[in-house]
């Protein structure tokens, strides 16, 4: 039974002068600041901390280092809380996870008895025949699946991230890490030291108990690191993974810091590995380093009487440390010779502690805690003593390198038969290992290895290539057992604590053909639990290697993927950045009660509210444009200046129609297709001078069109400049019969037909502002588009609204524009067109000038001309007909013959109109379109050529040409 020792330990993390109160399963306990949830519970004698995922076996502390997930808890507003490392807070109300009816009386604990009926992969082998049985079984499994519970009322939390920069990033603040940091800082480099613990020191803080010079070195290192101006320390900070080009995201208590460094020292130390014997998962069985962490960090005695399983020198040092602290060591079972003749071993013998050579643990007795162990010879034969009563088992049989970051950086590991541990065999020049994970175990070895690592790293950072793969300071004795596994006829000897996988499960999986490391993992799920195999990967490879009769390296290893420790979505998300683009007239629209809609990053006016229903407000806006005067903010349009000697050549190559012959002072509709002839963008091209054009593009494709133009300039070696003025300029379109009369009162240039003909472009002034006037419109009325710098758009809008007030000027939005443009039969790229639509499908052969020798998409269009399989046609419906929706299908002889792309009730025409992309045969026959609307009802639409309204375009003398090819110059 664990308990808090009375005497404080030097360097312990807890503040014994203050008390905290917390509750676990309704019982209240006290703890000290600095305690974690697990240490606080152990201090109160509670060693049963959780239930395992599959068999619901009782579980307790194993590593106190977040290498296992036995101790998981939940509170009201969090779940899957890792007890070993999460500080306990005053007033915390903790509950176990995945235990129905409390930890001790967990209703699923009986599952452990049925283990024999749930061998590895059992769920693949049952409950699928007959099929009707599966839902029942799936419900049963899903109810027991998962650990903690989520609460859907939790609000979203986001914790801001930031960027960090340094020359060298050192991962791990143990002896090697701190030595490396000081060595690098001494060379004038900016260094960051990250360590997942709240206090630096790593193993130096708990593993060298009585060693005087270890404690002295620790104090000196801490002092020097703290004092150094060029060292930034990040404690309680986990380096989540290594990403390309030294990109290292660190999860700190204050959010994620994404560090870019020029070099990395991986000094993350070791993961102590469990041994495999029956009931090796009972609360009270723990790793020796776990016991040392409890003792030196939290002043907790792991148990009163312990049996130690030893295969390395660390075992004897720890046994002596714990003995001196008051734990009675009942004996040491030596399943690996290394260290059994060390000074510590002899001191223990002198103190009467029996050492049992060639002996290992056969079984642990007790259920919710340890009552004793049975021993057995390592050869399976008899052992010096059969059973020992004790309340704690401490395992020290081997290590694995925490080399995940090195692996992700391209490094590789190999098994070292001397050390009985994997060590780095190769690594990139600027991501180097140091310390125990590189096989340097003694203090001197760690100090020297760290200095050597930094020396090689800084040389490589300065460009000296051809580093030597260094293993100069690796230890020469074993630090683990080759086969820390003990068979037992009744099993329960766990290789993976997360997934409840026993030795026989892995052997069975291999026997069933899943006999390589990746298939073994996927079939048995070894290493796929929340701790991601930190305690199971190495032993699983040992089991597979022995089963296949191969070496460890030949058996291979699975890939170490980020994250090193799990990280919350709230930390990954960070602050919410949603760039939002506003027109220069945004405030004015708000004052007019505008309803906005999102168009990519832009906010656009859908319609102006007023008191009426949206449909009615929109219809009013349509009427205003047709009968009097409307003004729409089109500032979201792409606006691009193209100028220089080769300006015309660039446009000839980029658009499907001629542009070189466009006269200065005139504009032309421009269409852009991609290399396969599919429509990408359209807009207006205005020629301001021989070598100066001004283009507009749709707001959705403006950026892509700008990029394309700049790329073609380079690709075709042209002397031309392309400048993007999309956000720099605003634009409004004044449309309606009254437009000319109102505009004349504001501009300093004549607007009559001869001076400013249809499709013309003029530079003029409105008040002080220099503007560009284009006689273009999308809505089929007499219209003028006014482009000006964003800074003056407000005054222009105000003067237009004032000058137009008697004429009944009314601002209109996108919804009204959609109806107005549909009445003229104009297409919207992306709605009437899709990923395969060419100009021939939309009835725009006039826009494709194949006599041009070259333009983007020409080869494809030349091939496709006349072969189009679908065509866009206009249709109309009786006034009282139910309105089809966009994308309702056109059906012919029971087959799909097309779809409706645009449809709307036209206030002016008094009946619905629309466009549909239909099979060519149907298009050419001109038959009515049978449209399947909601609930499968059919409506019949008669064909109507576009434009539906003012076909001859008399009302505008402006706007886009209709069907005739050369209607514009």
């Amino acid at each position, binding site marked *: 039974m664990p308990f808090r020792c009375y005497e404080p330990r030097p360097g312990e993390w807890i503040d014994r002068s203050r008390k905290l109160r917390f509750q676990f399963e309704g019982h209240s306990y006290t703890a000290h600041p600095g305690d974690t949830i697990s240490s606080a519970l152990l201090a109160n004698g509670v060693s049963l901390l959780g239930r395992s995922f599959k068999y619901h076996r009782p579980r307790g502390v194993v590593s106190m280092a977040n290498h296992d997930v036995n101790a998981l808890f939940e509170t009201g507003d969090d779940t899957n809380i890792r007890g070993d490392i999460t500080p306990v807070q005053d007033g915390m109300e903790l509950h176990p996870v995945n235990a129905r009816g409390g930890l001790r009386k967990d209703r699923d604990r009986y599952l452990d008895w049925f283990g024999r009926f749930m061998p590895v992969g059992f769920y693949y082998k049952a409950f699928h025949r007959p099929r009707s049985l599966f839902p029942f079984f799936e419900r049963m499994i899903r109810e027991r699946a998962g650990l903690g519970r989520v609460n859907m009322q939790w609000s979203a939390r986001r914790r*801001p*991230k*930031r*960027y*960090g*920069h340094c020359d060298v990033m050192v991962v791990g603040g143990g002896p090697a890490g701190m030595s490396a940091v000081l060595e690098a800082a001494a060379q004038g480099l900016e260094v960051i030291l990250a360590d997942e613990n709240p206090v630096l020191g790593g193993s130096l803080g708990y593993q060298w108990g009585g060693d005087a010079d270890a404690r002295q070195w620790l104090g000196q290192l801490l002092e020097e690191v703290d004092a150094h101006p060029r060292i930034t320390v990040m404690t309680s900070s986990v380096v989540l993974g290594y990403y390309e080009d030294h990109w290292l995201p660190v999860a700190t208590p*204050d959010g994620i810091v*994404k560090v*870019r460094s020029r070099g990395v020292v991986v000094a993350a130390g070791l993961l102590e590995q469990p041994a495999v014997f029956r009931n090796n998962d009972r609360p009270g069985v723990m790793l020796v380093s776990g016991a040392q962490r409890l003792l030196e960090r939290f002043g907790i005695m792991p148990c009163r009487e312990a049996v130690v399983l030893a295969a390395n020198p660390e075992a004897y040092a720890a046994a002596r440390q714990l003995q001196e602290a008051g734990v009675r060591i009942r004996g040491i079972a030596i399943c690996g010779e290394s260290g059994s003749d060390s000074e510590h071993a002899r001191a223990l013998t002198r103190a009467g502690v029996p050492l049992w050579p060639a002996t290992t643990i056969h079984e642990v007795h007790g259920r919710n805690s340890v009552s004793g162990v049975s021993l057995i010879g390592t050869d399976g034969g008899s052992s010096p003593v059969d059973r020992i009563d004790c309340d704690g088992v401490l395992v020290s049989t081997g290590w694995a390198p925490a080399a995940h970051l090195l692996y992700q950086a391209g490094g590789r590991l190999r098994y070292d038969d001397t050390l009985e541990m994997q060590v780095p065999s190769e690594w990139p020049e600027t991501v180097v290992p140091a310390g125990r994970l590189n096989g340097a175990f003694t203090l001197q070895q760690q100090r020297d290895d760290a200095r050597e690592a930094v020396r090689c790293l800084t040389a490589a950072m300065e460009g000296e290539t051809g580093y030597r793969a260094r293993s100069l300071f690796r230890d020469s004795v074993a630090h683990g057992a080759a086969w820390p596994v003990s068979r037992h006829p009744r099993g329960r000897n766990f290789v993976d604590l997360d997934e409840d996988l026993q030795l026989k499960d892995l052997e069975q999986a291999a026997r069933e053909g899943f006999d390589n490391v990746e298939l073994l993992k996927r079939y048995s799920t070894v290493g796929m639990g929340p701790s991601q195999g930190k305690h199971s990967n190495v032993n699983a490879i040992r089991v597979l290697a022995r089963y296949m009769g191969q070496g460890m390296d030949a058996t291979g290893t699975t890939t170490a993927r980020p994250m090193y420790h799990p990280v919350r979505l709230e930390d990954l998300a960070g*602050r919410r*950045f*949603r*760039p*939002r*683009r*506003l*027109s*220069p007239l945004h405030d004015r629209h708000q004052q007019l009660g505008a309803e906005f809609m999102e168009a990519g990053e*832009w906010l656009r006016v859908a319609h102006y509210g007023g008191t009426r229903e949206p449909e009615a407000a929109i219809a009013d806006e349509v009427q205003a444009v047709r009968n009097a005067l409307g003004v729409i903010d089109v*500032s979201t349009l792409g606006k691009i*200046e193209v*100028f*220089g000697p080769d300006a015309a050549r660039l446009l000839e190559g980029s658009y499907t129609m001629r542009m070189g012959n466009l006269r200065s002072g005139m504009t032309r509709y421009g269409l852009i297709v991609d290399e396969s002839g599919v429509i990408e963008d359209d807009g207006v091209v205005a020629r301001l001078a021989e*070598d*100066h054009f001004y283009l507009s593009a749709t707001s959705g494709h403006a950026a892509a069109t700008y990029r394309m133009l700049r790329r073609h300039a380079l690709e075709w070696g042209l002397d031309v*400049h392309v*400048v993007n*003025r*999309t*956000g*720099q300029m605003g634009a409004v379109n004044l449309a309606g019969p009254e437009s000319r009369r109102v505009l004349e009162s504001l501009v300093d240039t004549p607007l009559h037909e001869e001076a400013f003909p249809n499709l013309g472009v003029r530079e003029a002034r409105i008040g002080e502002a220099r503007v560009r006037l284009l006689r273009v419109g999308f809505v089929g009325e007499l219209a003028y588009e006014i482009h000006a*710098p*964003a*800074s003056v758009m407000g005054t222009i809008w105000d003067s237009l609204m004032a000058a137009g007030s008697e004429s009944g000027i009314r601002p209109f939005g996108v919804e009204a524009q959609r109806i107005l443009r549909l009445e003229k039969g104009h297409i919207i790229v992306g709605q009437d067109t899709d990923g395969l639509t060419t100009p021939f499908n939309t009835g725009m052969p006039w826009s494709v000038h194949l006599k041009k020798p070259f333009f983007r998409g020409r080869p494809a269009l030349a091939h496709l001309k006349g072969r189009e399989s679908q065509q866009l046609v206009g249709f109309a419906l009786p006034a009282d007909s139910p309105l089809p929706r966009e994308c309702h299908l056109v059906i012919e002889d029971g087959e799909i013959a097309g779809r409706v792309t645009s449809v709307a009730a036209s206030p002016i025409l008094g009946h619905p109109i629309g466009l549909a992309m239909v099979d060519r045969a149907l298009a050419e026959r001109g038959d009515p379109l049978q449209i399947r609307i909601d609930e499968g009802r059919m409506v019949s639409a008669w064909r109507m050529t576009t434009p539906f309204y003012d076909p001859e375009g008399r009302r505008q003398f402006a706007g886009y040409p209709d069907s005739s090819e050369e209607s514009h110059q």
Partner: protein
Amino acid sequence: MSLTVTEEHRLSLHQLVGPGASEALARDGLPTPPGELEALPHEAGFVARTGAREYLVGHRLGWTPGEASMPPWCFERCDRILRLQGESWCEVMSELCSHDMHRMGSGDWFMGSMAGVDAWLYVTGSDEGGVLVGCDPSLGDYLRSVLDAVIADRYQRFN
């Protein structure tokens, strides 16, 4: 640790592009930075060279390139300009841009991605000058609201 953000309205911005650009600047007595993505101070403003033959000029209000010396291609720019004053501007920027702002010296010019949008940054080099941040006018309100939010959070976190 305080950092203030103010709207900079006293600079008129123009973009000069094309072969005649550097000569036009010289005629108006404006400096021309030697290398691309470099800037030189001029009176209360600056001249930044944003391309091989492309300059962004921040000058006193009302200034436009001399009529006679007007190169054929000069465009008015309406960038939203914010002035950051206070030594913690690097920390604030570290939440918005991956560029190591600590390396920025006085007179340095940087064009990169900040808070998800493209922007330019000019270190004036004087305390009261502080740092100028400019972006497309349509994104001005967005960038200002993000800066205000970051400063408010940091103030609350560290005070």
